[in-house]
Each structure stands twice: as C-alpha cells, then as structure tokens.
C-alpha cells in the first residue's frame, strides 16, 4: 500500500489548483461558483489525505515521497530535496487541516456573501491550505520553514482582509485608525521575532547534523531489542559518529537518528572557536525553537498578536487563528520530539531547568494567564481568542511534559470545537447584524440601550448587546452549547478526554515542573468552564438587551450545516483516543518515537469535571439566575474593581509592550529619523557641511574662473582686436600707397646695406 503515498503531493496540489482557477478565471464566475470551487479544492485535499491514511493503516511506518531537488550545492555537501513525509503525524495534521478547512470554506460561502473581496478571500483561504499542508507534510525543516512563513503571510493577508474598514473614534466618530491593517502588521511583526528564533534553530541543526531531513523516527523503545542483533554494524557506526578529538561527525541521513548517536557518543560540536557539548547544543536548538513556538502558537511572551488578529473575518479566526496555523508550534515540537527528549536529560540552564521544562512553564503560564483574561472580556470573539491562547498553552505544556499524544489529541479536538465556536460566534454576529437592520426598519419598541454602542454604531460583537438569542437562533445555540461544553471539558464531549490526558501527563511527570503545570492547568481549566458558561449565558439566555438582539435572525443553512458537522465531531472526537483502546495513541506512536500512552486516572478526571461543573455553577449564579449585567451596565464581576480592570485590560500586556518595545522603538525611530537623519545627516552634514561648503568653494572658484582665467583669455583677445583696429588702417586698398611702401622699404634696405660700406670707406 506504500504506492498510495505517492498521492501525497496531490494533497497540496488540490488547493493550489483551486487557487489558480479562482485567481485566473474566478473574476468571470458567479460568487457561488468561486466559493464552491475553493471548497471542492479543499475537499479534494481532504479526500487525498484520507486515502493516505488508508495507506498508513496498512503500512504504518510511513515513508518519504520525493518531489523534486531543491537546494543543491554539491561542493558544500548541501543537498536538500523537496520531500514530503507521509506518516501518522503528518497525515493526522493533514486530515485536521483539510477537514476543518473544507467545512470552514463551505461556511464562508455564506458568511462572506456579498463581500466585495469574495474571490480574493477564497484565493487567500486556498493559499493558506497550500501553505499549511506544506508545513505539515515537509520531510525536512526547510520545507517546514517555507510552510511556516507562508502561513504567516496568509495570516497577515487575511487579518488585514478588510483593509479599508476604518475604526471610528468613540468620541468624535472620526476615523481613528485601521484596526485590521494594524492587527495584520502586529501579527506579522510579532511573528517575525519568533520566526527569527526558529530560523536560527534550523541553521544550528544544519551546522550540527549537516542535514535538515527528519529521517526515520528513532526506533521506539520496545523495538530496541531487535536492533541489538547487529552489534558489529553498531560498532562500525559508532566509529563514525565522533572523530578522534571528540567532535561529532555527521554520518547519517536523518537529524533524529544522528542526534541519538551523538548523545550516545557524547561528542562536541565546533561553534566558532569554542566546542559545545552536543547536549548543550540540542538544548540551544530546542530553546530557539521554543521562541518560534511562542510566536506562531501565541505563547507568552509573543501571544499579543492573536487577540488582535480576531479583527479579521470570522472564518479566518476559526481556520487560521484557532484550528490550524496556531497549532503549528505544537506540531513542530511533536515532530522534534527526539530533540526535546534528548534535551530533557541535559541540565545546562540555571535552576536545573531543561528546555522542555521551559516549554512546559511557558505553556502552563500562558494557559493560566489567558484563562483569567478571558473571564473579563465583552467581545464574543475576544473571549474565544483568549480561550484559544489558553488552550494552546495546554497543548504546549503537554508537549513540554512529553505528552505528545495528549498534545496532538488536544490539538485535533480543539481544532473541531474551537472552529465550531468561532464559526458559531460568526453566526451570532451575523444574526445580530441582521437584527440591527431589521430593528431600524421597525422603530417601535423600548428605548435602545447603549451598552456596546459606539457613537450610535452598534458593535455586533459585544456580548452586552446580545441576550436571549436562544429562541431567535436555535441551531446556532445548540451547536454553540456543544462547542462550549467540549471546551469546558464536560463528559463526554471531546475536550474532556484530551484535556484530561494533558492533566494526567502533568500529574504523572511527578517533578516540580509537573506539579507547577498541573496546578496552573487545573485552575485554567476551571476558568475555561467559567468563561464559557458566562459567554453562553450572556449570549443566549436572559432577555434581549438591544433591539438588534430582539430581532436577530438565524443564519442560512450553508452556514449552519458545517456547524452541525463540526458539532458532531466536537461531541464524539474524544472516542478517537478512548481510554483502553488508545487508537489515536497507537496510531501516533508509529511516527513519534517518544510518544507514550497515558492511562486513564479516574480521580483526576473526577476532580477536573467537578471543578468545571462548579465553575459553570458559579457562572450560572452570576449570569443566569440574575440579569447578566448590573443595572449600571457593568459586569457582574465588576465588583472586583482593580482586579477586574487588570483582567479586562489583559494584564496590561499591550501597555507593557507599548512601554518596553513600541515606545522605545518609536523613540529610537524618532531619534534616528529626526536627530540623526534629519538634523545631523541632512541639516548639518549634508546641508551645512557638504552643500554649503561646496557652494562656498564653487562661488570662490567661479569668481576665479570668471575673473582670472577668463580675464586672461579675453584680455589676449581684446589685445589682438585693439591691435587689429590700428593696423587695419594700413590696408587702404590704394595700390600706389603700397608701392610707396615698397619703395620706402627698398630705400631703407638699401641704406642698411650700403651704410656700413660708407662708414667703412669713410673710416
């Protein structure tokens, strides 16, 4: 069945074809055709991914598919081919990306209906699928990096999709800025920081191992006995691993097998003039990768772009900023699990930390921090955005703890229920906007309250403007509820199973990092249940708080049907890795060398569920059994005062970056542009020093040229002219005068000739 693997390029090709069709002839097609072409392209990609998974079911070890030569420098020993890797990990990602992607494409046909940039939107969406599938299917770090950068580009393009949409000042109603373009730029620039770290990691990998190819996953622990058969070949291999003076010698095909061999040999890597032990080198590589992870997967300290990225269209938030792109970091760590597990045994960092430990702490802190912030937001998408950051923190913490299966499992379930939640939120926004237009048509009814109004303009994303949507939008309500329960981790929805595995990994780790992560993640999980309860109660229960909410309309079937599909998977995806069978775990173990299957822990599961239910109970206490907003329009939690503001302002992260990064940068920019370039270089150096001194010199030399040089030349000319004026008179034209002249001359000559004779004779 390995022949099926050769279909792998088609997975990427399908959306590329859809992209090209829409790009070149989409302008002549009807809107709906454009949308369906893009959706069918995405669906085709999913079908091919499914076919690959059937192939893998027969030969689960997977393989690499050669596509084309790429970077080839024979003299430098560089030969990086464009290979695709078909194994259980990459195909899992392909299925999640293409599957969720297809549903979001279909949904977007309805959501983007009537938008001027409809075709552009679908071209971007298909381009994103191409990029993301390239990222997950590459067989070396360079292909992964190409995908990594391309998804960043697509993210930038799609966040800024409504680039002309102005943001109005709440006081004056004037255009205050362009939120979408600002968010797009923020996302791109913040991601650059992370990408820089990742690029350095890739360069160091190449420096150390001489290749970027992943290579076969190192034999899982159970199979090691079989490998001992050829002791002679092992010895021969070890001779090549390290040179005589203890330097690592790249010898194999793949990074991971070489990393294992180098660690076993304990050799050094030359870096500049110093020698770095291989363990420290791998720690450095993995730490730099973590910087990339914090950028792409929105972890502390680089997560700040993701909440702002929700300015983009809702399908984009669902596809890119919830389900797929932001999980690239988790995928990358899982793919590099060999390096992380090797680094786990090396303690070169202060406080006995290791790089996976750092990753765990970052993930756990992010999960906790974002969880608290989500408690105090009003914007429906912003709550989900921080929820996404928090859940990504769960995944990152999981892979940091070595729970690669748990992390990937949560990645997949999260892709389903978070895409579902975002799309449902889009449906809610859509409904409220329609209700707003209807309310204007029907001006009767109670006075409009103005919680979320800005200068008379309704903010359809503000949950304070909603309420009671359960009756108006029943389909959306039910799917939203399923998504919320899945996210909150309530049995038996998908989120419960995957989150439980992460908590179990933290619990079974047993060291300080594990306990630290367990406490933070437990708290974050409780917060998750609370803010999802708050959101559901605020949106769907109680009385409508605005005319727009009272007149809200259910979205068209093309939007709700994909939601139903996603809701189904959000409900049942937990069975993928059902405790006892662990089919997902066994599936991933084929490609993730250090994956281990965690057993179900009833006590932990009960504790987590109890916490979640308690949190929902508190949410109901505040937002269901009483009006969701206080009489003065403040939140029920507003009584927390300063703490509430702290959470509402997102821990002042943006202000913090404004202070330590943006303002100094602007200050430096002002200094460089104003003082250095403007005052010094332009005004002083250029204008004063060069221009004016040149001017002076030119004035002096000009005068010298005009007066002295020209004077001399003109003087000679003047002299000749004056001489000619007098001598001209001699030329009278009277031939007799000339004859007289000749005569006089002859007489003078005669005298000159004869006079000496006369003098001589007389003497």
């Amino acid at each position, binding site marked *: 069945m390995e022949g099926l693997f050769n279909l792998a390029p088609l997975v990427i090709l399908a959306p590329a074809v859809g992209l090209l069709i829409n790009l070149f002839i989409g302008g002549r097609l009807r809107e709906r055709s454009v949308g369906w072409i893009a959706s069918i392209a995405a669906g085709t990609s999913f079908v091919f991914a499914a076919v690959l998974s059937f192939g893998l079911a027969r030969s689960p070890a997977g393989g690499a598919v050669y596509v084309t030569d790429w970077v080839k420098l024979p003299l430098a020993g560089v030969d990086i081919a464009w290979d695709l890797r078909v194994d259980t990990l990459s195909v899992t990602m392909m299925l999640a990306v293409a599957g969720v992607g297809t549903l979001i494409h279909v949904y977007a046909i309805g959501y983007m209906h009537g938008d001027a940039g409809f075709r552009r939107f679908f071209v971007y969406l298909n381009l994103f699928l191409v990029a993301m599938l390239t990222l997950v299917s590459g067989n070396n770090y360079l292909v992964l990096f190409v995908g990594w950068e391309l998804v960043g580009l697509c993210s930038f393009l799609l966040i800024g999709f409504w680039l002309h949409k102005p943001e109005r000042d709440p006081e004056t109603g004037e255009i205050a800025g362009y939120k979408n373009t600002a968010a797009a730029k923020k996302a791109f620039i913040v991601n650059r920081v992370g990408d820089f770290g990742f690029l350095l990691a890739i360069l160091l990998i190449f420096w150390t191992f001489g290749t970027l190819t992943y290579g076969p996953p190192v034999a899982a622990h159970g199979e090691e006995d079989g490998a001992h058969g050829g002791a002679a070949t092992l010895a021969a291999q070890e001779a090549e691993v390290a040179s005589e003076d203890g330097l690592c010698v790249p010898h194999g095909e793949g990074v991971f097998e070489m990393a294992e061999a180098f660690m076993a040999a304990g050799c050094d890597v030359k870096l500049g003039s110093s020698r770095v032990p291989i363990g420290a080198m791998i720690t450095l590589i993995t730490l730099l990768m973590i910087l990339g992870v914090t950028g792409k997967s929105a972890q502390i300290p680089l997560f700040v772009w993701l909440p702002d990225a929700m300015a983009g269209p809702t399908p984009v938030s669902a596809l890119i900023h919830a389900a797929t792109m932001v999980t690239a970091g988790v995928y990358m760590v899982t793919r590099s699990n060999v390096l992380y597990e090797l680094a786990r045994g090396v303690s070169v960092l202060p406080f006995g930390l290791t790089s996976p430990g750092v990753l765990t702490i970052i993930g756990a802190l992010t999960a906790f921090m974002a969880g608290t912030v989500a408690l105090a937001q009003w914007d429906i998408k912003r709550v989900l955005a921080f929820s996404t950051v928090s859940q990504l923190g769960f995944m990152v913490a999981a892979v940091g703890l070595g729970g690669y299966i748990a992390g990937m499992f949560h990645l997949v379930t999260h892709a389903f229920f978070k895409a579902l939640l975002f799309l449902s939120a889009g449906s809610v926004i859509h409904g409220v906007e329609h209700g707003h237009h209807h309310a204007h048509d029907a001006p009767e009814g109670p006075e409009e309250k103005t919680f979320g109004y800005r200068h008379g303009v309704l903010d359809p994303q503000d949950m304070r403007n909603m309420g009671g949507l359960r009756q108006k939008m029943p389909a959306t309500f039910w799917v939203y509820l399923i998504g919320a329960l899945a996210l909150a981790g309530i049995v038996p929805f998908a989120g419960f199973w995957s989150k439980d595995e992460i908590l179990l990994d933290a619990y079974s780790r047993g060291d300080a990092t594990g306990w630290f992560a367990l406490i933070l993640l437990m708290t974050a999980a409780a917060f998750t249940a609370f803010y999802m309860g708050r959101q559901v109660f605020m949106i769907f229960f109680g009385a409508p708080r605005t005319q727009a909410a009272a007149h809200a309309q259910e979205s068209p079937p093309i939007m709700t049907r994909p939601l139903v599909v996603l809701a189904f998977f959000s409900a049942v995806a937990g069975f993928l890795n059902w405790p006892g069978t662990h089919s997902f775990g066994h599936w991933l173990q084929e490609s993730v060398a250090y994956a281990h299957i965690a057993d179900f822990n009833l006590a932990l599961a009960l504790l987590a569920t109890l916490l979640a239910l308690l949190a929902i109970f508190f949410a109901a206490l505040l937002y269901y059994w009483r009006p969701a907003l206080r009489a003065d329009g403040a939140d029920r939690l507003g009584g927390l005062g300063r703490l509430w503001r702290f959470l509402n302002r997102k821990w002042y992260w943006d202000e913090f970056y404004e202070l330590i990064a943006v303002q100094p940068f602007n200050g430096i920019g002002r200094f460089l542009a104003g003082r250095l370039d403007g005052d010094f270089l332009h005004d002083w150096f250029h204008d004063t020093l060069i221009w004016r001194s040149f001017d002076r010199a030119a004035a002096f030399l000009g005068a010298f040229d005009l007066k002295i040089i020209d004077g001399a030349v003109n003087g000679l000319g003047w002299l000749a002219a004056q001489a000619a004026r007098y001598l*001209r*008179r001699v*030329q009278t*034209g*009277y*031939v*007799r005068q000339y*004859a*007289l002249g000749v005569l006089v001359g002859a007489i003078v000559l005669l005298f000159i000739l004869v006079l000496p004779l006369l003098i001589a004779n007389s003497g």
Partner: protein
Amino acid sequence: MEPVSTGAYVIVSAILFTIGVLGVLIRRNAILMFMSVELMLNAANLALVAFAREYAQVEGHVLTFFVMTIAAAEVAVGLALIVAIFQSRETINVDELSDLKQ
C-alpha cells in the same frame, strides 16, 4: 670720339628709374603705371649693361636678357589682367580698385 663714361650711363639710368618710380606713385591709370614699371626695369637694364661694360663681365649682359624676358612675360599677364578688370569694372583707375581693403 671719346667713349661715354659709365657714370653718365648710371646717371641716365637713375633718372629713368626715378621717372618710373614717380610714374608708378603718381599716375592712377593702370596702363601708365605699367609703362612706368617697364621704365624702371629698363633703367635697371641700362645700369646692368653699363657696369658689365665697365668691368668687362658678361653676367650683366646675360642678366639683362633675363630681365627682358621676364618683363615680356609680365606684360603679357599684366595686360591681360588689365583688360579683364576693364571688362568687369569699366575702369582701370587703380584708386577705384580698392575692394580688398578692410
């Protein structure tokens, strides 16, 4: 009869030459100026043959023939020029032929 002295020949030659010079300087008619020039040449010829006889040298006689030959050629060219000038200008007054002055 006592031969005429060389000094007398030279005096006659000087008188002729002076008449020629004055003719060239005074007359405005080109033909007359031309005749005056011939007179000067003949005065020179007379002086040449006179001194040739005085010193019994033959070079003076020979040179006289050269001068006569050149004078004949000069007359041929000069008269042709004067005729051409007269045909185009209808005058041979040299004072009116001053076009080449500045």
